[in-house]
């Protein structure tokens, strides 16, 4: 038994699993709506409390000893390959576990109000609890394979929840698209792990737990494969997996479609938790990436490009959830920029603040949609501040936080990332990041104006949401406002005590901060005049083609369809199935000889026609030939 064994870890996982089983098997018949929602929320609360207890225990330890482990049993053991069902609770997983359980709990409570009256109420909470179980498995895993269980498990729950209203074929398709796109990334993840495990095994490191990997990783730095250093290749393959799960270019396409799911799901899975798994994975394997500067460069550039690209698409969307979806893709890009700059703690910081303000914005959007009886088109909203005063105020907090207004949470994390990017990526990438910050401020302000300010553009009646929904939003709003300030120093000391010595702010950094804040404010200021119908129409008409191009999201989905899916489908059906399988193998190879022998049989049958004179002739020839050969 390890000295740092902490047998309470399994209960953090067990609580949501129990909640899933309860709602999944007994929900509809025994629990009904009220008890089902309460049980699910209580399960997550229990998980949060346990995580907090473990966190307190962790804090009581000296910084270098902050690691709690629990090995449940040997999961797979097959000669040369062995993996334990083991979990770890270190500062990184502690932060993640607290964010996951905390935000999940708030969203569970919100959901009890939002999903009220839905026919699939208990099924919804069962899936949501199962999601938290898998997310915690991902976060607490002590080796990449258990992490992969969580990794794919959250993908499954995402699939089930995106297609929650499965009777709508479009929603079901969106779920399938998410699952398959993620699997494309997962294939890269799996190959990366296979390579890592094989190379370490050849170096005599059999264990796959993170501690062994950290110890063994330097052994890889001498190996080159296909002209690339092994750590770089492994890092890139794993990062490909991250682009799937965390919706980065080129695999981001599933996330906007994922908005087909219920809005609290978008807040929890597709903003605050699951989509950040890729960022978490990079931070978890930072020791590998630190050996692979070239891989980090790719991460940095991918993040910067995705952040900018998605922000541009977000400028013109009409659907309130689609704006937030592209915003999430863009903000995840920031987190990868930080990781790419080697500032893993900064990426986790932005992950935390983003979880607060983006979950808040999604829940607020849900409140608006709920209040407008399902309307999602912002051009049919406007003036909602009167009917939805709470939601209006809370959204304002989220809006200002994401726009980077100084003092609020988004400001601290974004500013830190841009500073690190300037140090490691140079002024060009930094400039792109600042431009993205301006665009972010613009599209969120646009969202806020179109939804809450000015006049109503439709006849729909709107109503404020119940307390069960506004209370969790209030909690998130407080975090979105104050979270950055509260966390900014403490988090770094906790995550990385060795490198967290506070640096004296250089005049250079102050200058950078001034520019990025100015960009954000400019974005906010520009949104007010430019969203006026006259100005918006003028811009739209003067750049009609460009507008259409951006509005249709640069036609990336269409491109994938034309360049990948259709050709592959046609190839499978026409070439492989019809030409090769039915034509070549079966037609020529199998039925060919069958037909030939049938024909031969018919031919030979004709010989046996009963004419004795012919038989006699053949017999005579045969005898003659035999005699000829024998003599």
């Amino acid at each position: 038994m390890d000295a740092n064994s902490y047998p309470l870890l399994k209960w953090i996982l067990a609580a949501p699993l129990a909640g899933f089983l309860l709602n999944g098997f007994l929900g509809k018949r025994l629990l009904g709506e009220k008890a089902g929602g309460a049980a699910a929320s209580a399960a997550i609360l229990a998980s949060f409390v346990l995580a907090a207890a473990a966190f307190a225990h962790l804090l009581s330890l000296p910084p270098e000893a902050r690691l709690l482990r629990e090995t449940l049993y040997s999961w797979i053991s097959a000669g040369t390959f062995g993996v334990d069902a083991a979990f770890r609770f270190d500062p990184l997983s502690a932060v993640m576990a607290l964010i996951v359980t905390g935000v999940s709990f708030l969203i569970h409570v919100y959901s009890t109000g939002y999903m009220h009256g839905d026919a699939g109420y208990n099924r919804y909470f069962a899936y949501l609890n199962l999601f938290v179980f898998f997310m915690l498995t991902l976060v607490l895993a002590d080796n990449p394979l258990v992490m992969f269980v969580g990794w794919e498990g959250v993908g499954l729950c995402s699939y089930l929840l995106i297609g929650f209203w499965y009777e709508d074929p479009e929603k079901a398709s969106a779920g399938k698209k998410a699952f398959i796109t993620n699997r494309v990334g997962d294939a890269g993840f799996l190959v990366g792990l296979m390579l890592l495990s094989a190379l370490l095994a050849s170096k005599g490191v059999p264990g796959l737990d993170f501690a062994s990997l950290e110890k063994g990783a330097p052994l890889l730095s001498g190996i080159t494969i296909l002209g690339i250093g092994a750590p770089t290749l492994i890092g890139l393959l794993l990062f490909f997996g991250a682009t799937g799960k965390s919706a980065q270019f080129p695999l981001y396409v599933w996330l906007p479609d994922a908005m087909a799911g219920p809005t609290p799901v978008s807040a929890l899975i597709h903003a605050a938790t699951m989509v950040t798994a890729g960022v978490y994975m990079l931070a978890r394997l930072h020791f590998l990436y630190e050996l692979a500067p070239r891989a980090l460069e790719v991460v940095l550039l991918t993040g910067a490009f995705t952040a900018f690209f998605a922000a541009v698409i977000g400028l013109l969307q009409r659907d309130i959830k689609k704006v937030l979806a592209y915003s999430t893709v863009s903000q995840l890009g920031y987190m990868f920029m930080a990781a790419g700059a080697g500032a893993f703690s900064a990426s986790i910081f932005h992950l935390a603040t983003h979880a607060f303000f983006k979950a808040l914005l999604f829940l607020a959007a849900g409140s608006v949609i709920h209040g407008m009886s399902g309307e999602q088109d912002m051009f049919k909203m406007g003036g909602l501040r009167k009917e939805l005063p709470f939601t209006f105020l809370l959204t304002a907090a989220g809006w200002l936080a994401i726009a980077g207004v100084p003092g609020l949470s988004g400001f601290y994390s974004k500013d830190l990332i841009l500073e690190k990017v300037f140090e490691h990526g140079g002024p060009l990438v930094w400039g792109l990041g600042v431009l993205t910050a301006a665009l972010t401020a613009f599209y969120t302000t646009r969202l806020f104006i179109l939804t809450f300010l000015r006049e109503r553009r439709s006849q729909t009646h709107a109503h404020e949401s119940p307390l069960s929904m506004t209370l969790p939003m209030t909690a998130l709003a407080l975090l979105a406002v104050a979270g950055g300030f509260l966390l900014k120093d403490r988090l770094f000391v906790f995550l990385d005590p060795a490198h967290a010595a506070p640096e004296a702010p250089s005049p250079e950094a102050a200058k950078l901060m001034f520019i990025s804040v100015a960009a954000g404010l400019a974005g906010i200021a520009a949104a007010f005049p430019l969203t006026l119908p006259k100005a918006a129409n003028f811009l739209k008409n003067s750049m009609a083609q460009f507008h259409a191009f951006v509005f249709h999201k640069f036609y990336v989905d269409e491109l994938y369809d034309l360049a990948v899916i259709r050709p592959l489908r046609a190839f499978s059906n026409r070439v492989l199935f019809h030409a090769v399988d039915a034509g070549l193998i079966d037609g020529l190879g199998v039925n060919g000889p069958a037909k030939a022998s049938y024909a031969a049989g018919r031919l030979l049958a004709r010989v046996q026609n009963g004419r004795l004179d012919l038989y006699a002739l053949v017999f005579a020839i045969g005898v003659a030939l035999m005699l000829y050969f024998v003599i």
Partner: protein
Amino acid sequence: MTELITNPLSLLVLLPAAAAAALLLVPPERTGALKYGALAATLLAFAVSLKLWTGFDPASAAMQFRLDLPWLPSYGINYSLGIDGISLLMIMLTAFLMPLSVLASFNYIKESRRAYYVCLLLLEAAMIGVFAALDLFVFYLFWEAMLIPMYFLIGIWGGPRRIYSALKFFIYTMAGSVLMLAAILWVASSHHAASGAWTFSIPALQAATFTARVQFWLFAAFALAFAVKVPLFPFHTWLPDAHVEAPTAGSVLLAGVLLKMGVYGYLRLAVPLFPQAAARFAPWLAALGVVGVIYGSLVAWSQRDMKKMVAYSSVAHLGIVMLGVMALEPAAVSGAVLQMVNHGLSTGALFLLVGVLYERRHTRLIEDYGGLAKVMPGFAAVFMIVTLSSVGLPGLNGFIGEALILFGSFRVYPWLAGAAVAGVVLGAVYMLGMYQQAVFGPVRHAENKALPDLSVREWLYLLPILVFIVLIGVWPNPFLKRALPASDAYIGLAHRQAAPPAADVKLSLGKEDAK
């Protein structure tokens, strides 16, 4: 001779055959007695198989539950049985799937019930016999005996094109077995020529050595016979036809057990008997397996008939199993053995589920369904879990086998294993595509509006499979533990004259920089 009954292994072969004989005495109109008689016999056989499981020493690689009765002593032919961990798992799978197949036939089979259940029971006896045989002659007899009931199952109780399919199945596999028979006779006679003694005993022949030239031809003959059975690309085209026409139970056993015999043949005979030739062929067979993974998945994607899709998915799944078997690496081989069990469970369950639908609507076309989640929620849930098992979701059984094969074979064939990962993506594409079309969306056809959900009997034969799908996914070690010593022994035999031992197999992918 009492050993024939006191040895549980021998009893397991005799019991279904005796039950088949007993069923012949039941008057054909007493359908209840026929159905429940067959069910009782298969359940009893399963109980006997549990005795094998509990009595088996998992740490040993030796053949256990040995039985050796002289049969034709002048030719060294013995009725000789015995199992190692690999055959144990295959026999357990067979004995487990049989009662479920009988239960699934209760309403599906309405004509000549007596003959049907007799065929099923004879098939069980022959299948278990194949996995238990330790004498080549006995092995061949059981191998051929198995074809006959399966031929009738497809040809009599099958769908509209049953005659074509049954004949295709029979001639295809017959062509392979004739080659195998010739090879078996050659093996025995060349052993006789070398040592002066006749023997058909598999362990004895495994200890013998043959010249490289002889090995080449003999391996080729065995390999071809088994490749048809696996089925390895491009010898697979009998499978979709046979599956589509076979009754539900026929499909379950065909996919669940019969396909495993091909792989089992490689594990037990082709590779251990002719290691030098095997070493030469192994990379090519592994490559054919990977071609099968991608080819099978892509062709499955274009199918509109559910059974045909599942059939092509089997080509993909068995392809990855072949990769594992040919990698000759402990994790990969034991993973392949486990994956055979997993495939039997998940594909068996898929055929049972298609059977559930077919009994209600008499169509297997995917587009004839849609919106089933609304009318058959229980069915939809089971179908979901089985689909996820089939696509290898971590936490369920399929992942364990797949991961072991991929991680293990990557150390030997990195490029092939990397390519096989494409199957992970494509599996999700066609399986979730089918699931979505059949289960999600609105109820498109009026006939589907009032479909009843799973009955108690249907739950009874699906639930046990679900239990094992989850159990193996979460706790695979009891199964792996039994497969490992046998897998190691197989690798040892494969390496006995050829390449360096497993520990020295170096990753041939990277090159080291000068330090």
